[in-house]
């Protein structure tokens, strides 16, 4: 007599469980990939349009009488958007220069607006810093880090973003400006367009 063996059916995982597991795994992979992509690539690059944002100004600062300034309201003007912090020593190097250049443009009523954004700074220290360097151009905190999020900044301060009259990001300066001439060299070509 020969021994007979009957094939034993494998108890498989139900198909619906397999589908759910694969969907969940795929979803997780997509999330991780998107997160990595966002972390590595800025949302906007030089040459692309800057999304609108609002800057709530510090007490004592206004822009055309308003305590809040939005980028969209500055259409037709060159915008110099400077990120700084009171604890940042390199920021101090350029603070006086920025104010000086701002005043020189304001005197001739040039189509340029300087905006200062205090990044990860405490309100009291920010105001102390602004008083110390007698900064008069509109300044405000980066509430909720929302403006930083627009530029996906994670590098530090100081950083300056040059936005042209059409709202296009045209240049980025990482680190402090070395001189008034350097600041103007960024702005003047955009003013003459």
């Amino acid at each position, binding site marked *: *007599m020969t021994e007979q063996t*009957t094939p*034993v*059916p*494998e*108890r498989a*995982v139900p198909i619906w469980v397999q589908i759910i*597991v694969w969907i*969940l795994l795929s979803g*997780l992979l997509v*999330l991780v990939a998107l997160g990595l992509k966002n972390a590595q690539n800025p949302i906007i690059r030089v040459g692309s349009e800057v999304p609108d944002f609002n800057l709530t100004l510090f007490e004592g600062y206004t822009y055309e009488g308003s305590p809040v300034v939005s980028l969209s309201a500055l259409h037709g003007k060159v915008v110099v958007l400077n990120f700084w*912090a*009171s*604890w940042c020593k390199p920021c101090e190097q350029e603070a006086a220069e920025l104010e000086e250049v701002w005043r020189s443009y304001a005197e001739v009523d040039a189509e340029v607006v300087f905006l200062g954004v205090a990044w*990860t*700074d*405490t*309100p*009291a*220290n920010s105001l102390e810093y602004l008083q110390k360097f007698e900064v008069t151009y509109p300044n405000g*905190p*980066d*509430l*909720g*880090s*929302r403006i930083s*999020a627009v530029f996906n900044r994670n590098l*530090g301060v100081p950083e300056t973003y040059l936005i042209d009259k059409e709202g296009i990001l045209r240049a980025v300066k990482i680190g402090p400006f070395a001189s008034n001439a350097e600041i103007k060299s960024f702005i003047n070509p955009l003013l003459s367009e």
Partner: protein
Amino acid sequence: MKRYPLISLLVLILALGITGTVLAQDVRPTDDEVNAIAKQLYCPVCENTPLDVCPTEACREWREQIRAMLAEGKSEEEIKQFFVEYYGARVLSEPPRQGFNWVIYIVPPLVILAGAGILFMGLRKWVTPDDPGHDRGAKEAPGTADEENEYLARIEKELLGKD
């Protein structure tokens, strides 16, 4: 005292007032009180460093901000809310349970549950093998084994008969 009751009362009130002011000025939150909140927040510039142990100047200023707010009588929740509004939810050590953040609270337990389920199924399969010929005797109804033997005997007989 009897002669000048009003003056005495005034002096007493003034003295209490001055003492109260001095006491209020002396109430400076301790480092422990500050750090109890700081450890729930993260450094804004150096990633993955809790605020209570962060050595940067920015963090030192943030801790002073916490101290100042505690001195003003602000509660822990109010202080954390201020930091979220001012710097964003990324400063919290535990992201708020809202919107997309739910993913990080839901997915890990689900994955652990799924893993436990798979492990349980695997162990059960290991303990009770599927092979029906091995261990089914105890579970079968009485008489089934006899019927099977009888069936096999008949097949054997038929096969022998053919030879």
